[in-house]
Structures are given as structure tokens and as C-alpha cells.
């Protein structure tokens, strides 16, 4: 039963994540955190962090991670299979049509309208992650906010905008800064 649930959950993630990269993130959050509670928001944020640091798409990484935690290696296999199955069918079908007719303007037109919605959904998932980072999962109040984390966020964001330093390095620096603040300043 749990296998079927994992399979169907990740099938939906694979089927509805358009635009690659972070597009899968809001869908994973919806299924894995909100609907089934397989991961807490903090664990989900860790998962996204780990995905950033390791090769492989977020959806495949999440399928493996969640599958293993919920139902061991078989769970990971079932979830991963679910998440790539829609791609296998749809991409092969489109590639076949393309190699025959060589025209795909409709598909690209549709994608043009999906992109803004996908950006909005990524933004909305990003806000949940920042909530976890700034308030540590506690209620969102002005006094409860961790100003150290806000400062880390702002510095990391500005560093990324310079384009001189990659996302992995920025995340590692943020991690080291947090560690340093605790060890040296005791916060």
C-alpha cells in the first residue's frame, strides 16, 4: 500500500513539474510535506540543500531520499520509477512526433505561459523554506525571528548576484558562518 502511495505521489511530481530544476520543488513539498507528512519542513529543506550539493535532479534525489526513509530501498526504487515514468512516455512520444514532423511550436507556446506560473510556484516554495530558516519551524512572529539567519540570507543573496561565486560555495559559506557564529560568539 505504501509502495502504491509512493509511486502515485512521485508520478504526479514527474507529470506536473514543467521547466526543470526547481520546478519540481513546490510539487514535492505539496506531496511529501503537506499531504502525507513523510518529511517535516526542516527535513525537506535539508533535502533541497543536499540535492544542491550532489549531482542529479531534485525530483530523482527526493524520490530516493523519501522512498528509503519511508519504505527502504524498494520504496526508493518505486518512487524513482514513478517520478521518471511520465518523462519516459511523454518525451519518447514527443521525440517520435518531432522526428516525424519536425514542428513543435504549439508545445513551445504552451510552455511560454507555464513558465511564469512555475516561477511563482518556486517563489512560494522558497518562502516556506525561508520561514523554516528564519523561524526554525516556530510561529512567525517579529520577536521570534533569527536575525543571524536573515543576515546570512542577505549576504548569500548579494554574493550570488555578483555571479563570481557558485551556489554550492555560497551554501557552504553560509553553513560555515552559522557554525562559526555558534562556536565563536555563542549564538
Amino acid at each position, binding site marked *: 500500500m505504501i509502495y502504491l502511495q509512493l509511486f502515485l505521489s512521485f508520478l504526479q511530481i514527474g507529470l506536473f513539474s514543467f521547466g526543470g530544476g526547481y520546478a519540481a520543488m513546490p510539487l514535492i513539498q505539496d506531496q511529501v510535506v503537506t499531504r502525507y507528512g513523510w518529511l517535516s519542513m526542516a527535513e525537506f529543506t535539508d533535502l533541497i540543500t543536499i540535492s544542491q550539493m550532489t549531482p542529479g535532479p531534485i525530483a530523482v534525489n527526493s524520490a530516493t531520499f523519501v522512498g528509503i526513509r519511508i519504505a527502504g530501498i524498494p520504496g526508493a526504487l518505486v518512487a524513482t520509477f514513478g517520478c*521518471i515514468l511520465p518523462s519516459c512516455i511523454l518525451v519518447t512520444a514527443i521525440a*517520435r512526433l*518531432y522526428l516525424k514532423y519536425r514542428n513543435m511550436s504549439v508545445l513551445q*507556446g504552451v510552455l511560454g505561459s507555464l513558465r511564469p506560473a512555475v516561477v511563482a510556484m518556486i517563489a512560494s516554495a522558497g518562502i516556506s523554506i525561508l520561514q523554516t*530558516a528564519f523561524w526554525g519551524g516556530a510561529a512567525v512572529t517579529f520577536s521570534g525571528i533569527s536575525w543571524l539567519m536573515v543576515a546570512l*540570507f542577505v549576504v548569500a543573496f548579494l554574493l550570488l548576484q555578483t555571479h563570481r561565486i557558485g551556489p554550492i560555495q555560497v551554501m557552504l559559506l553560509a553553513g560555515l558562518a552559522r557554525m562559526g557564529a555558534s562556536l565563536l560568539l555563542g549564538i
Partner: protein
Amino acid sequence: MERKRITLAERKGVLTKLFFSTLYLSAFTFGGGYVIVTLLKRKFVDEYHWIEEDEMLDLVAIAQSAPGAIAVNGAIVVGYKLAGLLGVVTAITATIIPPFVIISLISACYAAFRDNLIISLMLEGMQAGVGAVIASVVYEMAYVFYHGRDTASMILMAAAFVAGCVFGVNVVIVVLAAGAIGVVRTLAARRKEAVK
């Protein structure tokens, strides 16, 4: 294009090369799907000359417009183009193995990691970092619409944000609605063109 008749040995050679090149790319590509399709192109167009440049551009466009991870989709289109369904299975298996193995190992250590004070502090700081990475991705993607004075896209983006974040509308519904709007817009644009 005429499909050339190839011997069994040649086909096996193609599949082996396909397997190991996609395995290698998947294991060592950090930075997401867009990076991996560039590397796929470099490998199969520039190095092996198995795919024409123009055709590769369209294959990449297919990988990007279909749902799912771009790295996986990229492997599927290249595999299909080179060796049909067997190529798809080969390329996809090779693409999945590295992240599957790496994440399995990490998740085995995750509980111990999380209980370690130093590592949990590190992970906590990295939450702010990953938040910044996502914020900058969103900023850059949204800036494209703003810079191109693409009002329709900006309205769509704002509407989708309000629907998802304020009213808690399910992500799937938002995606389906945006897709439907896209179909209508494309058909309308076509009709306009036909009238001209």
C-alpha cells in the same frame, strides 16, 4: 531521415558508449538540468558527431518543454534518437544510477548527521544559503519578464503567486490552469496569423 541499417556489433558499441557517457555526465554534473544538456550536446554533437547541431537544439527544446527533470528528459531524447527504445532504457538507467547511489548513502547517514551538533549547525546555516539560491533563481527568472516588458507573463506570475501562496490553491491546479491559458493563447495567436 533514412534510418541506416547498422550491425548488431555497432549497435552494441553505441549503447555501451551511450551508457558510460550519460553515467559519467550524471555523476559529475552539478548545477542542474540546464548544465547537463549543454554537456550532452558537447559529447554527442561536438565529440561523437552522432547528432546534428540543429537537431540537438530541437531535442533539447523537447527535453525542456516536457514535464520532468531536464537531465532525465535529455537522456531520453538522446537515447531515443541514437538507439530507439533500447537507447531510452540505457540512457535513463545510466542517468539514474549516480544520484540514486549517492542519495541512498547520504540518507543512511542522515539521522547520525542531524544529531551531530556541528553538522546540524552547518545544515541550519545552509538553509539560509539554499533560500538565497532559490531567491536569486526566482529573481533572475522574473527579471526576464520584467526586462522584456512581458506584461501578460507578469500578470500570470502574480496571479499564480496569489493563488498558490495566499489562497493555498494546489500546485497541480495552478500548473494545469497556466497550461490551459497557454493553449488558448497559442491558438489565438495562430488564428491571428492565419487572418493576416
